[in-house]
């Protein structure tokens, strides 16, 4: 993306004085409520029991410094509203497991990326049944019949407008009820050497997918016509049936393997890039695919048979990473040399592409036939069907991919090289020297901001991604079971200040559950919150809660 569409006027971060202007939401004095003259305190006689305290989980600082800071600032604001929040720092895996597997938390904040289509996220998060069974996704404990209806409609309809309406209504409900609340929109950032690389294509999935790999232009100063990046820890296994959830693997698999379907930047089926160039829906329980053909990196023929085989493995083995897809697929049949018919066990509408086709890499039948379970294999020398193949791989050190000349598409880059560099300092050092030419996993940070200001050779391609940094609320836990309390919390989040102060203006404030990056699916008119402590307190008071010197109380009996 050209420079001029990016927020050019990044906050001059060293000019401290300007910060106060953006911090209006934080204007309340630290300390007790009574210090703040704007607060309209209630009569103590009206006060009943104080609202119970609740926990706000925070990740350790080194896991994600910016988010750690963001949570501390929000918690400070919630405290100033008069709610008793306790920040608890948990090691990341423990935190995730407490929320996702045990539903045992008050509030938590992290980032999530629903991907090319929000259907899966919506279904998993808000289906009422999922609230009763820990580990199934509805950790908010949000149960609503209308929501269940809407989930079914958006999953099953083949009518685009009907789907849009349903998803808009879902966003309105989420904004009102606040089982979750988005804070900042995650931008996909691609800082790169503008003397070596160009031609980035904005895509909701970011810049590490085939769409970009075939379009990237190589400039004169790029010594070996490669993408040269880094990862902070070892790459361990190139098995397409395992670990697709890890971005480091997805980024490389996108170059190494064919996918049944790719989406273009408009989120439509990309006929060129997808192995299935034609997708037909004879009815809502059938998908018919017509496929390209070609060769695998070991010279064997690559065709529709491999696709039929891939789905057959799904049916026979249900590999864990694809178990959601597998739960919908009932049959897979080769109709003729280049046509495959996939039968579903329940009606799926427009969401079928994202659920059934997009997640699947085509697996070579001649390699995987007879392997069971496929996901347990350690693959060190993968047979690839995509644009590249593995040239050199030292697990603890580096990996080098090289272009295959018998791939069906034309492209400029001749290879992808990744070195394992755990230290941020070293990453930027190498970037300045041009040894690496793209910041593979960029996050808003002082390093990024300063390079953006000072380094002429760096440009940043950026596009709105599919995810947000957001707040999860456990609606089972008092006082978070009260809608007014959740709304007060939403009011107290200083989104603009956080965007400016902590994320250097790279991530803008987010308001709706579905990001604008989804185009028509996004609802621009959801309820917005004021980023104001006063509004937060008013919301509580309007709902009958009593705020005194020592915080918020239930009304007296």
């Amino acid at each position, binding site marked *: 993306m050209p420079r001029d569409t990016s927020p050019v006027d990044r906050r001059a971060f060293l000019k401290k004085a300007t910060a106060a202007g953006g911090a209006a939401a934080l204007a309340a004095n630290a300390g007790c409520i009574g210090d703040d003259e704007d607060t309209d305190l209630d009569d103590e006689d009206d006060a009943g029991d104080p609202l119970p305290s609740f926990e706000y989980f925070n990740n350790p600082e080194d896991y994600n410094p910016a988010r750690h800071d963001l949570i501390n600032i929000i918690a400070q604001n919630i405290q100033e509203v008069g709610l008793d929040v306790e920040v608890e720092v948990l090691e990341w895996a423990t935190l995730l497991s407490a929320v996702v597997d045990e539903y045992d938390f008050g509030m938590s904040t992290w980032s999530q990326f629903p991907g090319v289509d929000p259907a899966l996220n919506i279904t998993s998060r808000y289906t009422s049944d999922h609230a009763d069974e820990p580990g199934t996704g509805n950790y908010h404990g949000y149960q609503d019949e209308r929501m269940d209806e809407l989930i079914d409609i958006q999953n099953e309809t083949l009518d685009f407008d009907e789907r849009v309406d349903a998803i808009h209504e879902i966003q309105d409900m989420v904004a009102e009820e606040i089982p979750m609340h988005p804070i900042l929109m995650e931008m996909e950032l691609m800082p790169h050497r503008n003397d070596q690389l160009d031609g980035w294509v904005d895509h909701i999935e970011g810049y590490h997918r085939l769409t970009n790999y075939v379009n990237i232009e190589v400039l004169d100063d790029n010594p070996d016509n490669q993408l040269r990046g880094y990862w902070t820890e070892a790459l361990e296994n190139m098995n397409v049936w395992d670990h697709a959830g890890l971005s480091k693997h997805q980024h490389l698999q996108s170059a190494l393997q064919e996918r049944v379907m790719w989406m273009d930047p408009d989120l439509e089926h990309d006929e060129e890039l997808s192995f299935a160039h034609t997708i037909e829906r004879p009815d809502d329980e059938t998908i018919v695919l017509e496929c390209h053909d070609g060769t695998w990196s070991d010279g064997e023929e690559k065709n529709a048979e491999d696709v039929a085989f891939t789905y057959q493995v799904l049916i026979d083995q249900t590999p864990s990473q694809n178990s959601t897809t597998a739960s919908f697929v009932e049959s897979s049949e080769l109709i003729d040399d280049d046509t495959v018919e996939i039968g579903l066990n329940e009606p799926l509408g427009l969401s079928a592409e994202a659920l059934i086709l997009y997640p699947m890499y085509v697996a070579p039948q001649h390699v995987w036939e007879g392997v069971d379970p496929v996901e*347990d294999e*350690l693959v060190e020398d993968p047979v690839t069907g995509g644009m590249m193949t593995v040239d050199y791989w030292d697990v603890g050190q580096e990996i080098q991919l090289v272009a295959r000349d018998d791939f069906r598409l034309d492209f400029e880059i001749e290879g992808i090289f990744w070195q394992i560099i755990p*230290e941020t300092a070293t990453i930027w050092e190498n970037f300045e020297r041009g040894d690496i030419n793209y910041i593979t996993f960029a996050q808003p940070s002082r390093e990024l901001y300063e390079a953006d200001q000072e380094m002429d050779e760096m440009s940043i391609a950026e596009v709105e991604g599919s995810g947000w940094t957001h707040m999860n609320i456990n609606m089972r836990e008092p006082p978070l079971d009260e809608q007014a309390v959740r709304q007060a919390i939403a009011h107290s989040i200083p989104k603009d200040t956080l965007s400016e102060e902590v994320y250097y203006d790279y991530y803008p404030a987010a308001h709706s559950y579905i990001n604008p990056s989804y185009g028509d699916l996004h609802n621009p008119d959801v309820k917005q919150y004021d980023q104001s402590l006063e509004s937060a307190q008013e919301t509580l008071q309007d709902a009958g809660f009593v705020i005194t010197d020592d915080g918020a109380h239930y009304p007296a009996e």
Partner: protein
Amino acid sequence: MSKINFAVRRTFQLVLTLWAIATLLFAMFRLMPGDPTTYIIAETMEPEVQEALIARYGLDQPMHIQYWEFLVGIVTLDLGISFHSSREVRGIIAIYLPNTIVLMITALVVAYVFGVILGTIAAWNRGEGSEKSAVFLALLQQSTPSFWTGLIVLWIFGAYLDVIPMSGMTSRDFRPESFFHMITSLDFLWHLMAPALVLAFYMMGYPLLLMRNNMLEVLSEDFIDVCRAKGLKERTVMYKHAARNALLPVVTAGAIAIGYSVGGAILIETVFSWPGIGREMVRAVLRRDYPVAQGTFVMLAAAVVIMNFVADLLYSWLDPRVTYD
């Protein structure tokens, strides 16, 4: 008691210790809060998939069977499969352990050579300023957090002067054909220098003090006076007689240090991004990859126990005064 007898008893003790540590480890992993299965299972998985995964890692077996299989696994060096990468744990150890060993041996050799020399000089000049400075140096070396020294070395020589690489073991375009080819290359040496010297700086304090103390004890013994009385040159007395006798405990301490420093290099590996076994263990712990965490820990502990064993045997072999009780 004979030497053979001592060796047999010591071997028995070695096995007992390893067993106890393995058992401790097994118990610890089952006591911890949360279930090891939570890492490997995702919310979107179907129940039967979840069960299959649990069975794959043997977590559905009753506790005593898991325990038995764990012990058998250790004996047969089959340490299980990583949750994270599906690699065999022993394969992972085979990748990272040699890197640590090279780093560690280099540092140990430097530390012990210089430590012994400085310790000898310090003892010889006892009561003088140079002794005090040597002792103080040794204490300073032990007191400065090694990772902090590493940070400062990186800050000055890496970021500021740009004369040492900031991280890693080899340069980008260097593709060694074999491990041996790699460690004998100049490029590797250039990368090895800073972490090895920082580690050596930290490890040097101990042999220095030990050598000094042993020297002082030896020098207070009668035979030194006899040597002097014979009219031998001071230098000869110092190196040939005193230092030689004082060296034995340092040698065995060195053997023990090999065992401990395999795990002790963790911080240096972290600072210099050295792809070693310690860093791998920390990473496994942080991402709850229990088979790898368990396997690497058993390996690190075994290194310690075995080197202690070797040191004991070495000591009994070399020192005629040792009795075996």
